[in-house]
């Protein structure tokens, strides 16, 4: 153990926060391009990580292959959800996507419990036990992987959206699908592509979370909720603001645990969301009622 417990905890908070941010990123790109809330998103990742664990522990596949297998499954599941949503949910039924993905959330929990089991399992830690001590804080391979990966992915997605033609097509599809369509953009394919990329992100986050804790059929639910909360506070139609809030939530959680004890993490975060929404500026609340000609 390093010599700076607070520093250690802050590192833990930072890495947790980066994981929330990464998961939120996957959720946001689908929300912004497809206008869909995917309540089952955390479970998509869980499917990936849980399957990867199964492949590694029961079929004795080498870890990287097992993880690739999990990622592939996550992409398939998320794409399936995406296809259902894109083809079956008309835009004039708000809230329907939430209900449908809620059902999928239930379904996936039960499916994975049936296919594998209902217990929690230890996931192999990535990078073995290698660690380095910086300024009294123990930093292990998992932490470095999280920091590097999240910065790369977040930076990469941002560059994609802002600098490439694909990104422009994506933003056009998000703002006005009809116009994008008539400009020759294949909106449906693009949307599906976004769902697939989001599937990869979910699986990666789920594996990283699993290697820090353990994996079972429900473990991603709190991660997704905290990501949601960050999105709601930072703004679902923004980019860096909600991600920053997500990292902030990770650090806030760590501080709550440091000062108030191990079981304080959960209530601290959930109290935050309730209070934040009570004091929230009008900007984040539902649109004012305006009637246009």
């Amino acid at each position, binding site marked *: 153990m390093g010599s700076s417990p607070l520093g250690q905890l802050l590192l833990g908070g930072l890495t947790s926060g980066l994981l929330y941010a990464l998961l939120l990123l996957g959720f946001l790109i689908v929300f912004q391009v497809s206008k869909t809330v995917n309540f089952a998103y955390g479970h998509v990742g869980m499917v990936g990580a849980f399957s990867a664990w199964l492949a590694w522990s029961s079929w004795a596949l080498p870890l990287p292959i097992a993880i690739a297998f999990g990622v592939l499954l996550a992409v398939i599941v998320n794409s399936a959800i995406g296809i259902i949503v894109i083809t079956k949910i008309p835009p004039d039924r708000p809230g329907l996507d939430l209900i449908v993905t809620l059902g999928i959330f239930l379904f996936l929990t039960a499916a994975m419990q049936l296919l594998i089991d209902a217990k929690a399992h230890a996931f192999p830690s990535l990078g073995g036990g290698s660690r380095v001590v910086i300024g009294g804080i123990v930093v292990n391979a998992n932490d470095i992987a999280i920091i590097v990966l999240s910065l790369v992915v977040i930076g990469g997605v941002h560059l994609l959206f802002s600098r490439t033609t694909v990104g422009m097509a994506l933003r056009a599809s998000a703002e006005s699908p009809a116009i994008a369509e008539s400009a020759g953009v294949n909106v449906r394919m693009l949307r599906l592509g976004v769902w697939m990329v989001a599937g990869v992100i979910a699986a990666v986050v789920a594996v990283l979370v699993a290697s820090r804790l353990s994996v079972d059929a429900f473990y991603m639910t709190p991660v997704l909720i905290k990501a949601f909360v960050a999105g709601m506070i930072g703004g679902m139609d923004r980019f860096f603001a909600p991600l920053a809030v997500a990292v902030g939530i990770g650090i806030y959680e760590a501080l709550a645990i440091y000062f108030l004890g191990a079981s304080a993490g959960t209530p601290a975060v959930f109290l935050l969301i309730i209070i934040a929404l009570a004091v929230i500026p009008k900007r984040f609340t539902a649109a004012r009622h*305006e009637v*246009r000609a």
Partner: protein
Amino acid sequence: MTDSIRAQNVTVRYGAFTALREVSLELPKGVITGVIGPNGAGKTTLLNALSGFTAVHSGTIHLEDRDITDLPAYRRARLGVIRGFQTVRLLERESVLDNVLLGTERLPQPGDISQLLALRAQWRWKKSAREEAREVLQLLGLSSESERIVDSLPFASRRLVEVARVLVSAPPLVLLDEPAAGLDQRGRLELATALARVHQQSGFTLAVVEHDIDFVTKLCTNVIAMDSGKFIMAGTPEEVFADPRVQTSYFGRSTHAQA
């Protein structure tokens, strides 16, 4: 019961676009006023500003002597400023009668506890409210449809249901936004006649945004003309329609006459 409403130097902006420019006008008490103007003139914005659905950037709005500029829309409605919408807004899966009954909100009625627990006061109120609703439905010729679910009604009837909802509480001030839009010739005639009849009974202040000259001439004794967010003039239908400014803005600039 009737009230007049007055706008003074009202400006409404949507971002960089100015929808109403320093508009000053009055809807006189007890009079049926038509509001005319080409598309984009700001007629709907005017209704929104008067009813509180849009905030004004500057200027004041007075209901009789009372400054209501800062009152939210629901408060103005409780004071008796009731409006209809250009696109009819109804409780789609409820009956005609239930839709009209929604309009009884501003009438004195038993409190929520009485209603929820079905206490005696609630029974009595329910009976009298339904009678009022049926009266309005009869005036508008909808009596036979009172139990039908509105989403199965033809377009013209749906508009009439909204008008019924607006009128059921006998408000002192009524604002209707193109109530005849989409109606055929006969439908327009029936609506104008019904509105005239109700107005004759209660004498409230009524403003009707409309494009149809015949409709406006038949129903309204006062007409306000607007264009490009500005108030042009007010007067009798004959005066207004003969005025050269109105002729240019209404007929000269549009590519086809709005007959």
